[in-house]
């Protein structure tokens, strides 16, 4: 990687608004810079070791800025002309690996500044209508910032000024970009960074918004600040600027027209010259020169991913030199950064790159090969399928389950392998054919060969099992079976009632070419070899099973064994008279031999004694099994069959009719079985049991002693047996019984029996009649004779001795000290009564709710209708009472109350002194009585009155400043007392205490 070049001026790459670096799609990097004399365009391909530099503009009025034209590697550049700083459009078109400068167009006759040196232009690219935009300065005093646009898709046309913002102070750093539907322009207005924008998404350009100071600016930017605004995406723009306290960045949201809080990217006051590169995918990188010491800066950057910033900067170019004015651009997954380096002429135009990782994917198309094991749920007590009879060994545990699973280890199969061998022995059934053996012997022993005439023929023909000199068939298709093949006689193996299964077949056949005689091996020809398998009926009807073929085989003088194979998808059943038949065909496709040409079939067995064949002359079948599946099978011991099972497909047992099951098997729900001793049986009808068997719910049994029985009807039970719910029994002593009739010895505990003779101390309950001895505890009996001290309850008539406690009886003769509750009683003195109607209670009796009583002193009465109560009696809720002094009365209508009685809610009373009255309507109260809530009263001295409607107040009423207070009127509503004080009318309200200072 090499430097771009050199420059005699320090501002060679100075810009902060426009973009000077571009990376084309092929990775070629382009740099705009000033060499101190002219404005240059340089480019280099990766790895950027050699730069090609051309003069873009002659002269130094540099105001370079550019942008890729959308969808191409062509670069649109704007800068000042050589003689002034009037914005001029310079198109650079890429062709191959080079760029060519096209016709230039002066955008504006107004100069963007007195000097074009940097900072005054941004090439903003195209808006949604294809109009190209630039933002630039616009006056020699830098007091104007402008935005101009081209005709749609024609930046070489006549540009139009869209806005020109003029102010008093210098306008530094006009910058801007196309962001979404807006062209946005930022600039330093002398005191702050401001911005405004216009909607340029439509054919007509919207009005520019009123310039406003960017909110949330960080670090106090000033006139020396470098600032740059670029769109990161259509919904985000990024403003970065230098300040006296470091580098800041803010995100602009065009949809809400808002600026984010400022993010401080660096805090060093001497950090300088920030610039931005964006990748168009929402990422941005801000580069700046990080101060280390005077003339000693590093080039560093932070990445913004659309939401977050790098927490710390990354150094791209280490410190040690004076790095200034970086400008960056993105392309081809790289960011290129150019910068000016050095402190004196010549300055170096530096170059550095960052490779931005690109995420790529490779996709693997995936699939899976899966299989599942088929299962069957079968009912019945064994895993048997369609067989008639079976022998199930002992130890199989079988229980009345409806379905089971048998593990795959239960292998049930009757398939027998079958390989047949060609023999030279003529069939007894079909004389033209030879027999086949089913046993393999020793190869090339006891074998012979037969030859079939071919001659010069081609086409199909049959190789006779017994050989033939007849002319070769030579047809264009395979002939029908002729009977000249091989037949499996029943004497060797009968397949009647059997099925040759579907599956793989294979065959070996050994040929040689011979001429003249069968031993004269010679010649060569090409043929397709067929070995055909048939089922031949006794009537000579052939049913094809399979035709195995091996094509284009060369048969020559060398004896060769040819192998054929094939597969059948269905089995072939053999019925009576059916036999397996095989013939061999050749379809000769090339034959240049003489007319004496023979084909020789080798290794036919001559073993008529042991019937063994040669493997070079064999056909291997898929095997056979009895037609219809079944046969008989043996399930080995240790097969656990219980409860629910899943039977794999290999298990072929289901629904048997009968079985023999060895003893010790646990059986249930079967009809008839011989069962050995010690077997646990349930729900059977008839059995013989040995002793110690446990029996339940049987009708008739012979049970040895010590057996435990329940719910039997007739039994002979030895002593010590525990019985319950039997109808009649003879129970020995010590037996506990519950039932109808029993003779129970003494000390027996009985319950719920009809008739019993119970000895003393027996506890009886719910029996109709009993004779209970003294001290027996009896409850709920109809008739009893209970001795004294017996506790009785709920009985109707009983003679109760003294001291007996009676409750709920109608009439009784109760001795003293008995407690009674009832209608009428005669109760001696000192008895406590409650709820009685008529009683005569001596002194000290406690009464409640009686109608009429004569109560002695000290008796406590509540709610009586009429009582005569002695002094000191406490009375409540009485209608008419004569109350002796000190009695407390409540809620009586008419009373004559002595002093010190407390009366409430009475209507008319004559109250003695100190009586407290409330809510009375008419009262005559003595002095010092407190009255509240009354209607009509005569109040003596010192009375405090509240809430009366009409009052007559006598002397010494505690109404200060009042002499005599006469009600002004009769009032309703209560609660207010009007009094007159001089000429003043006073109102005394409820709850108030009003003082008057003057009397009338």
């Amino acid at each position, binding site marked *: 990687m090499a430097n771009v070049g050199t420059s005699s001026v320090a501002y060679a790459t100075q810009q902060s608004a426009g973009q000077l670096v571009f990376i084309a799609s092929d*990775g070629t990097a382009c740099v705009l810079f000033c060499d101190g004399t002219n404005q240059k365009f340089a480019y280099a391909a*990766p*790895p950027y070791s050699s730069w090609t530099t051309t003069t873009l503009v002659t002269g130094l009025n540099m105001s370079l800025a550019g942008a890729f034209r959308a969808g191409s590697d062509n670069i649109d550049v704007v800068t000042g002309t050589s003689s002034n700083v009037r914005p001029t459009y310079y198109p650079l078109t890429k062709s191959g690996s080079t760029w060519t400068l096209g016709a230039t167009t002066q955008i504006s006759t107004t100069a963007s500044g007195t000097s074009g040196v940097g900072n005054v232009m941004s090439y903003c690219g195209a808006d949604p209508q294809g109009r190209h935009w630039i933002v630039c300065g616009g006056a020699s005093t830098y007091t104007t910032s402008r935005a101009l646009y081209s005709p749609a898709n024609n930046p070489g046309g006549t540009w139009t000024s869209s806005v020109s913002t003029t102010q008093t102070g210098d306008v530094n750093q006009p910058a801007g970009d196309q962001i979404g539907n807006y062209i946005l322009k930022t600039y330093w207005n002398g005191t702050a960074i401001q911005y405004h924008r216009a909607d340029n998404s439509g054919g007509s350009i919207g009005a520019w918004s009123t310039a406003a100071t960017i909110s949330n600016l960080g670090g106090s930017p000033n006139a020396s600040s470098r600032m740059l605004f670029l769109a990161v995406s259509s919904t985000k723009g990024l403003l970065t600027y230098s300040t006296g306290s470091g580098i800041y960045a803010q995100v602009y949201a065009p949809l809400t027209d808002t600026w984010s809080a400022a993010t401080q990217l660096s805090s060093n006051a001497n950090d300088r010259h920030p610039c931005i590169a964006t990748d168009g995918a929402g990422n941005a990188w801000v580069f700046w020169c990080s101060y280390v010491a005077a003339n000693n800066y590093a080039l560093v950057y932070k990445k913004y991913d659309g939401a977050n910033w790098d927490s710390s900067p990354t150094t791209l170019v280490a410190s040690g030199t004076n790095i200034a004015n970086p400008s960056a651009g993105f392309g*081809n*997954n*790289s960011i290129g950064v150019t910068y000016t380096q050095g402190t004196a002429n010549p300055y170096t135009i530096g170059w550095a790159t960052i*490779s*931005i*990782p*690109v*995420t*790529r*994917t*490779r*996709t*693997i*198309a*995936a*699939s*899976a*090969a*899966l*299989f*599942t*094991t088929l*299962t069957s749920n079968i009912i019945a007590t064994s895993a048997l399928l369609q067989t008639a009879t079976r022998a199930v060994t002992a130890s199989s545990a079988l229980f009345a389950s409806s379905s089971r699973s048998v593990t795959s280890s239960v292998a049930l199969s009757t398939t027998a392998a079958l390989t047949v061998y060609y023999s030279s022995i003529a069939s007894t059934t079909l004389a033209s054919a030879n027999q086949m053996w089913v046993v393999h012997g020793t190869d090339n022993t006891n074998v012979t060969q037969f030859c079939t005439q071919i001659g010069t023929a081609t086409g199909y023909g049959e190789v006779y099992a017994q050989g033939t000199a007849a002319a070769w068939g030579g047809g264009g298709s395979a002939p029908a079976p002729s009977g000249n093949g091989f037949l499996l006689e029943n004497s060797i193996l009968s397949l009647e009632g059997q099925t040759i299964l579907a599956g793989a077949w294979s065959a070996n056949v050994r040929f040689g070419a011979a001429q003249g005689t069968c031993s004269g091996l010679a010649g060569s020809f090409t043929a397709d070899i067929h070995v055909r398998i048939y089922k031949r009926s006794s009537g000579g009807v052939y049913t094809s099973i399979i035709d195995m073929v091996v094509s284009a085989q060369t048969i020559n003088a060398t004896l060769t064994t040819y192998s054929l194979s094939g597969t059948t998808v269905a089995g072939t059943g053999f019925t009576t008279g059916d036999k397996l038949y095989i013939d061999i065909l050749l379809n000769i496709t090339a034959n240049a031999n003489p007319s004496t040409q023979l084909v020789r079939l080798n290794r036919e067995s001559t073993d008529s004694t042991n019937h063994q064949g040669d493997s070079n002359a064999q056909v291997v079948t898929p095997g056979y099994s009895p037609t219809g599946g079944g046969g008989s099978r043996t399930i080995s011991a240790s097969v656990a069959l219980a409860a629910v099972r*899943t039977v794999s497909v290999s298990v072929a047992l289901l629904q048997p009719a009968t079985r023999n099951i060895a003893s010790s098997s646990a059986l249930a729900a079967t009809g008839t079985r011989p069962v050995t001793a010690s077997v646990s049986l349930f729900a059977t009808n008839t059995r013989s049991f040995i002793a110690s068997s446990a029996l339940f719910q049987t009708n008739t049994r012979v049970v040895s002693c010590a057996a435990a029985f329940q719910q039997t009807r007739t039994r002979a039970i030895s002593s010590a047996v525990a019985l319950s719910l039997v109808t009649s029994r003879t129970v020995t002593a010590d037996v506990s019984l519950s039932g109808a009739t029993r003779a129970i010895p003494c000390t027996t505990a009985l319950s719920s029996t009809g008739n019993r003779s119970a000895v003393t101390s027996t506890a009886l309950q719910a029996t109709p009649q009993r004779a209970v001895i003294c001290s027996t505890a009896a409850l709920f009996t109809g008739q009893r004779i209970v001795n004294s001290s017996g506790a009785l309850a709920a009985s109707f008539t009983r003679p109760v001795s003294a001291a007996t406690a009676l409750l709920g009886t109608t009439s009784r003769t109760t001795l003293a000290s008995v407690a009674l509750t009832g209608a009428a009683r005669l109760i001696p003195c000192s008895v406590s009564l409650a709820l009685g109607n008529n009683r005569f209670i001596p002194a000290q009796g406690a009464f409640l709710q009686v109608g009429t009583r004569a109560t002695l002193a000290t008796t406590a009465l509540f709610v009586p209708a009429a009582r005569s109560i002695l002094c000191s009696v406490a009375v409540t809720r009485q209608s008419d009472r004569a109350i002796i002094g000190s009695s407390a009365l409540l809620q009586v209508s008419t009373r004559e109350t002595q002093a010190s009685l407390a009366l409430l809610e009475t209507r008319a009373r004559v109250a003695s002194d100190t009586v407290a009255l409330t809510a009375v309507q008419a009262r005559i109260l003595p002095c010092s009585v407190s009255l509240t809530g009354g209607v009509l009263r005569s109040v003596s001295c010192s009375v405090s009155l509240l809430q009366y409607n009409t009052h007559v107040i006598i002397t010494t009423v505690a109404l200060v400043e009042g002499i005599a207070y006469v009600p002004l009127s009769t009032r309703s509503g209560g609660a207010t007392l009007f009094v007159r004080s001089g000429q003043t009318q006073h109102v005394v309200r409820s709850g108030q205490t009003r003082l008057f200072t003057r009397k009338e």
Partner: protein
Amino acid sequence: MAAATCQAQIGTGSSVTWANVEAGCKFNLEDNATGTTPIQIPTATGTNYSWIKNIVLAVTGAGTTTISNRRVSMATSPATGITLHWKGVAVASYAQAASGNRPASAGSNGATPATYTLMTTTPAVYDSASVASSGTGPNGMMCVIVLGVDYSYAGGPGSAQAVPNIVITYDEA
């Protein structure tokens, strides 16, 4: 900086041979990406696994870049009962797929074998190392992948049952 040409490859054989696997990788009980020896769908709760597939991101056209952050994911969610599991293994530790290194069947549905990670549709890093793309052949570690099928799988048997495409994602810079 020239990007490399890359390819997903599968390693097979006792002495590993790498071959393009992007056209198809059949999870089976064979040491290849095409065989149809099937995996048994469990007949009761449990998970059976395929033989391992040794997958690498391979450079077939050298570049001047660096490849890093290799990730693996599924393009879509699999059918119920089908899961893919992966682990990163150094190429030097290549082991030929065999019944012996097939994860042991699990007694629960959807079980992830020990040392493996369940593959999801979110790329997961199996090798973050930066390796230059200047050399052809495997770049970075192998991603050893197995397929699990459990009792809940209702897709039935077949030699080409659908499995989500496997996506190898990587960064190149």
